[in-house]
């Protein structure tokens, strides 16, 4: 990477708007993806994540604004797949072609080193299946082949749209470790996912969008701590303090034992002031940061993503 390129973010989206007729899928969106970080791209279904990634990669034209990768429009990069590896949710494979033939074509198309085909197949644990036709692959195997394609050019930037889809737990764990190591080597990753738990364990920064607009951008800790957090309280006189906090507008939730509870809707300073005014002894008073899921829900004001939300209904015989 040149000194000039190092000064620029890996990806920069500026005032991006994308309309499909009357529908505005992405609305004046701006964010950056720095080098050496895993940046999570988060938003509810239909928030405009995939559309944004397609514009970043030159597959869709912006209605307004622009997206730059390594300081240039994607289409003006020389040998783009050698610099940017991409896995899009919508990408498919010809079912009649073998995995290895697919990678050979990708290598020739991108003027990439075909000698890396074996290495990337081993990297995604697909070497054994490479000479089978893709039509016989499971969704997880297709996802691994897509990752192998993205990695083929040994790129400095990775753009991954829902890369965990179809992967088994071992595959997801591998992906998490791989992305971490990739960023630690100074490369950049922009990854969109619905798997909030996976995101929380993998990403350094977040870009949260909703209805095509930027909701929040920054380090994960900054985003989770910026949203409302609850306060953990432990006191030998818990019932009296609970009552006082309720009267002050706090929402109380039971803790692990009768002496502890948590308070939402009141800042930690106010909880301390109320305890002091009531003359209640405190054994513990601390703020508890919101989880990524809580932050996501608060920021987008929506439902949890489908893969985490609904409880599985009981089997028919258990229903009354």
């Amino acid at each position, binding site marked *: 990477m040149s000194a000039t390129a190092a000064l620029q973010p890996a990806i920069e989206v500026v005032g991006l708007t994308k309309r499909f007729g009357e529908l505005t899928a992405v609305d004046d969106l701006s964010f950056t993806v720095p080098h050496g970080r895993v940046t999570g791209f988060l938003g509810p279904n239909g928030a405009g994540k995939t559309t944004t990634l*397609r514009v970043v990669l030159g597959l869709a*034209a912006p209605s307004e604004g622009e997206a730059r990768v390594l300081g240039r429009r994607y289409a003006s990069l020389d040998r783009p797949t050698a610099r940017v590896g991409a896995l899009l949710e919508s990408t498919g494979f010809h079912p009649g072609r073998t995995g290895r033939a697919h990678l050979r074509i*990708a290598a020739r*198309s991108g003027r990439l080193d075909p000698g890396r085909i074996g290495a990337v197949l081993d990297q995604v644990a697909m070497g054994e299946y490479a000479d089978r036709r893709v039509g016989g692959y499971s969704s997880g195997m297709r996802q691994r082949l897509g990752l192998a394609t993205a990695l083929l050019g040994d790129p400095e930037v990775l753009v991954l749209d829902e890369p965990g889809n179809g992967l088994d737990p071992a595959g997801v764990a591998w992906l998490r470790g791989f992305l971490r190591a990739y960023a630690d080597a100074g490369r950049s990753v922009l990854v969109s996912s619905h798997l909030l738990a996976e995101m929380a364990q993998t990403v350094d920064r977040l870009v949260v969008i909703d209805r095509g607009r930027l909701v929040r951008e920054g380090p994960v800790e900054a985003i989770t701590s910026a949203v409302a957090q609850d306060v953990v309280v432990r006191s030998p006189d818990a019932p009296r303090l609970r009552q006082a906090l309720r009267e002050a507008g706090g929402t109380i939730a039971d803790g692990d034992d009768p002496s502890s509870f948590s308070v939402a809707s009141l800042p930690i300073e106010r909880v301390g002031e109320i305890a002091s005014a009531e003359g209640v002894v405190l054994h513990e008073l601390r703020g508890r940061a919101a989880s990524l899921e809580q932050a996501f829900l608060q920021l987008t004001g929506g439902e949890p993503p489908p893969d985490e939300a609904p409880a599985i209904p009981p089997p028919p015989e258990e229903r009354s």
Partner: protein
Amino acid sequence: MIGLIAIEVAKVRTTRFWIGLLLGGVGLVMLGVVATLAIAGSPEGREAGITPIETVEDLRGFIATGSIVGVFALVLGATTMTTEHRHRTLSGTFLATPTRWPVVVAKTIGAGVAGFVFGLIGGSIPLLAAAVTFAAKGDAVPFGSSVIVAIAAVGAGSAFSAAMGAAVGAALRSQLVAILGVLGWALVVESVLGALLPRAVKWLPFTGLTTSLTETGTVDLFSPLVSGLLMALYLAIALAVGIVVTMVRDVE
């Protein structure tokens, strides 16, 4: 560009679709060849204008039987871009070559190359069949350099069909629409137009222009040179439309 053409040829070669089309084309040519040889010289054959092969000119006419393979080349061409829509591989193609227009040109040329090979095979089958028939009678098939030209002409017509299919297909998303569209035009629309406006036949790309390459002078058509120029013009127009549509359209 040569690299891109090689990639497009590799894309066709690494699937089995082309094999099915080629076998279909070869099968149909063989059927035509056997039927022609069977009735040539018979009262039914004479009635249908099918005469026995006695001269080089007769053999050239017989080689034109292989032109039917061009229909299969047309389908092959029409699927070069639409198969990428169908299997959603186009994003990978344009991630590697984001300028797009060279891909459309390479697909058209690549389809033309494949179509030419189809045509050479299709044109060689009647020659082979004639040689075997003559050898069985202890005779030598009437041969001349014009026979080679006739096979090359079948190849050129087939190459044009495949390239036109690719250029037209580049403007469409649906593989079914592309296949039915080009077949419908070549086999139905041009036949109807030919019946309604016989003098316009020579202007039609498939029943007129490609036929003129192999026709031995019994029908009112343009010369092969004029037909070749018109084919280049038609192809350029179709290719320009395909490029414009591909350049402005978002990839899904």
